[in-house]
């Protein structure tokens, strides 16, 4: 993996009439990474993907894919040629058979890999003579992925590639994605709601909320920054007011205080020792907890008066 960015956006905004779908999105997707793009429904993920592929024009801000601007007609065409996209709809022609759909798609792409086509037909157990309208949701997803993988594109953009798949099928798909990165050194940018899958294969993530990236970076760095700290006191826990940056979700229950820290914990720990707890435990945090925390923190900041 190099430090070159395949996708880069700065202050990207997109307004649809009344709705601000993107509100200053900053993203950086390193070349050769598997990048998990996370956010709740309506957070702006699909809009961001549309802007990156030149299917929607940004209202303001800058977007670059392979260093090119998707908003310009000619570079937009080049981007779409070098990048394979699978939408959440898995757009396919229902009246075609699997084999016809593959032959049809193949005709557009000179770099099409017949070897990968045979490999994924077998591995995904796709029936070539079946008509597409008769395929299950999982089969449709696998066919759409096969079409994207065989193009041997530099960048794969996948909108929820494993939605609707059973765990075994999802694992097949993840394995195909890992294989694409190892064998072809492609970059994969995918959105997902399956946080455990993202943790499994992604090395970089961004969490977006209300059109902005609230968390982004290398997954291992985020894991190192976020920690759960539990304090136990001899008697009832004292009242707390922490000043160290990156302190989230302080919870007091009798003798026990739990804190989520996003700043490596050291500064918070120093401050906490001042309260003389009987014990301090630091434990790692999952991506799910980071996700829930960052999405809720944004919620709390916006509606502080609602209270929970």
């Amino acid at each position, binding site marked *: 993996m190099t430090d070159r960015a395949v996708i880069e956006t700065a202050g990207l905004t997109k307004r649809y009439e009344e709705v601000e779908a993107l509100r200053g999105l900053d993203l950086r997707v390193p070349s050769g990474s598997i990048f998990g793009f996370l956010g709740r429904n309506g957070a702006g993920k699909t809009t961001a993907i549309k802007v990156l592929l030149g299917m929607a024009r940004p209202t303001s801000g800058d977007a670059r894919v392979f260093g090119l601007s998707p908003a310009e007609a000619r570079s937009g065409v080049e981007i779409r040629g070098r990048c394979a996209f699978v939408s959440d709809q898995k757009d396919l022609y229902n009246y075609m058979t699997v084999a016809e759909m593959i032959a049809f798609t193949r005709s557009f792409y000179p770099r099409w890999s017949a070897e990968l086509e045979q490999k994924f037909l077998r591995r995904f157990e796709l029936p070539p003579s079946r008509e597409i309208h008769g395929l299950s949701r999982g089969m449709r997803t696998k066919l759409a992925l096969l079409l994207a993988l065989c193009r041997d594109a530099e960048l794969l953009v996948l909108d929820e590639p494993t939605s609707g798949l059973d765990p075994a099928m999802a694992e097949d798909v993840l394995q195909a994605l*890992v294989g694409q990165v*190892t064998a072809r050194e492609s970059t994969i940018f995918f959105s997902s709601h399956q946080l455990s899958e993202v943790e499994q294969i*992604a090395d970089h993530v961004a969490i977006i909320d209300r059109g902005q990236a609230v968390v982004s970076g290398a997954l291992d760095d985020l894991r190192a920054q976020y920690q759960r700290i539990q304090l136990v006191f001899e008697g009832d826990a004292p009242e707390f007011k922490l000043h160290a940056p990156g302190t989230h979700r302080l919870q007091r229950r009798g003798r026990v205080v739990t804190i989520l820290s996003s700043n490596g914990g050291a500064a918070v720990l120093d401050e906490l020792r001042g309260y003389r707890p009987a014990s301090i435990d630091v434990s790692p945090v*999952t991506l799910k907890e980071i996700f829930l925390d960052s999405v809720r923190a944004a919620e709390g900041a916006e509606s502080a008066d609602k209270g929970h």
Partner: protein
Amino acid sequence: MLLKPNPSSGVPIYLQLMEQVKHAIETGALRPGEQLPGIRPLAEELVVNPNTVAKAYRELEHEGVVELRQGAGAFVTDKAPTKKDADKLRAGQAAVAAAVEKLRARGVTEDEIRRLFEAELARNVEERRSR
């Protein structure tokens, strides 16, 4: 030999892989001089990011457990803690446990035991220096 890491444990996958390699060496499943699986095939087999496997191998090299040979792959070094070391430590732990138990029975407190151990280690170092 290496198992699928648990992505939801909160422990970074590269650290889990490092632990697994070290464990494999300690149990004798991997011996000094033997080759570790290649980064790409292992990433595909475990369905994890190849950069994550590469990071685990780099960190293991940094710790002196494996040696990365250009183009050939990763090999267990002679310095890697082996089964022998693990056995030695296990035996040592048993001896310490017995000593601690004996001292406790005589009413020596935890703090005092800790101080005794530290004083003994310090004296040991001094003696070896003056020899």
